[in-house]
């Protein structure tokens, strides 16, 4: 992390977005996600399943993507690239991102879960994918895949490594931004139902993957590598789901 974040429009007029916008984005996303999921539940008569999963995601993204968009327009340069580093350098970012995604899925997550397994009996986070995706197959998985491989990486990188990381970094420095955004990333993905120790292990594993994504964002000054890493991470899960049925 020796290189600074690249100069943005802040060199001309400092953007005035910050932690308040991050909190607002999270609040709007959680409320909208809950609301749309509830509506989908009412319409379908089921508390889970693909419509509810997608409705919840779309609602969440209203906040996580909508607030950075509004923040950039009203309080920043008007450009997501300038304000939050939403840029992709294909030649290097794809290579870095694919490697980071594979490392995240097969090394970072497994090492963190393995550490928990060394201290607690029967740590198992296998249920997570089913909880997040509804465990679809066939057409359902084909419909959900773009949300996981394209939508989630774009929206979450823009929010967590764009708005949240940079908001914290502007106040408390890059290290605080990396750690803070990763903690928030882990907390937002917290879920219950696998047992307290497994729930905690999963949250720490996702937070650790967030650390890797945040490091990439700070090190390169753009979201491209993390975006590809996030997409690769979820693509591995989609492939695993497709081949497990």
């Amino acid at each position, binding site marked *: 992390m020796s290189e600074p974040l690249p100069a943005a429009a802040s060199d001309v007029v400092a953007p005035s977005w910050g932690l308040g916008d991050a909190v607002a984005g999270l609040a709007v996303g959680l409320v909208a996600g809950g609301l749309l999921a509830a509506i989908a539940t009412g319409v379908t008569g089921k508390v889970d399943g693909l419509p509810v999963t997608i409705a919840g995601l779309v609602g969440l993204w209203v906040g996580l993507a909508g607030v950075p968009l509004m923040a950039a327009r009203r309080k920043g340069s008007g450009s997501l690239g300038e304000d939050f580093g939403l840029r992709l350098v294909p030649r290097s970012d794809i290579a870095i991102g694919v490697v980071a995604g594979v490392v995240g*899925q097969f090394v970072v997550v*497994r090492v963190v879960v393995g550490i928990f397994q060394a201290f607690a009996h029967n*740590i198992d986070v*296998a249920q997570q994918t089913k909880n997040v995706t509804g465990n679809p197959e066939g057409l359902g998985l084909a419909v959900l895949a773009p949300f996981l491989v394209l939508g989630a990486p774009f929206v979450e990188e823009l929010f967590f490594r764009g708005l949240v990381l940079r908001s914290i970094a502007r106040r408390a420095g890059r290290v605080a931004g990396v750690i803070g955004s990763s903690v928030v990333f882990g907390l937002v993905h917290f879920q219950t139902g696998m047992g*307290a120790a497994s729930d905690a292990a999963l949250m720490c594993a996702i937070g650790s993957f967030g650390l890797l994504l945040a490091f990439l964002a700070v090190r390169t000054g753009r979201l491209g590598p993390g975006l590809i890493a996030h997409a690769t991470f979820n693509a591995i899960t989609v492939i695993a789901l497709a081949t497990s049925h």
Partner: protein
Amino acid sequence: MDHNSACSHPGCGGAVATKLTYDYAGRTVWLVDPGTVIEHGMGLCQGHAATFRPPVGWVLEDERLPTIPRQPPIAV
């Protein structure tokens, strides 16, 4: 109740990851691996097995073999 296929917790129906059997006279509950044949008892999914607590005054004997579960990919 078929304790081999579905979790016995009301409203759950998850895959059985652990079996539970007990000795009423001895006030003892055993948690055993899902492949273990038991005469009476119930099946529990991973989550409900992890949060299971025996009744007050009963002893819990966890006889499951330590396992490192297969770690499927997760989604974020």
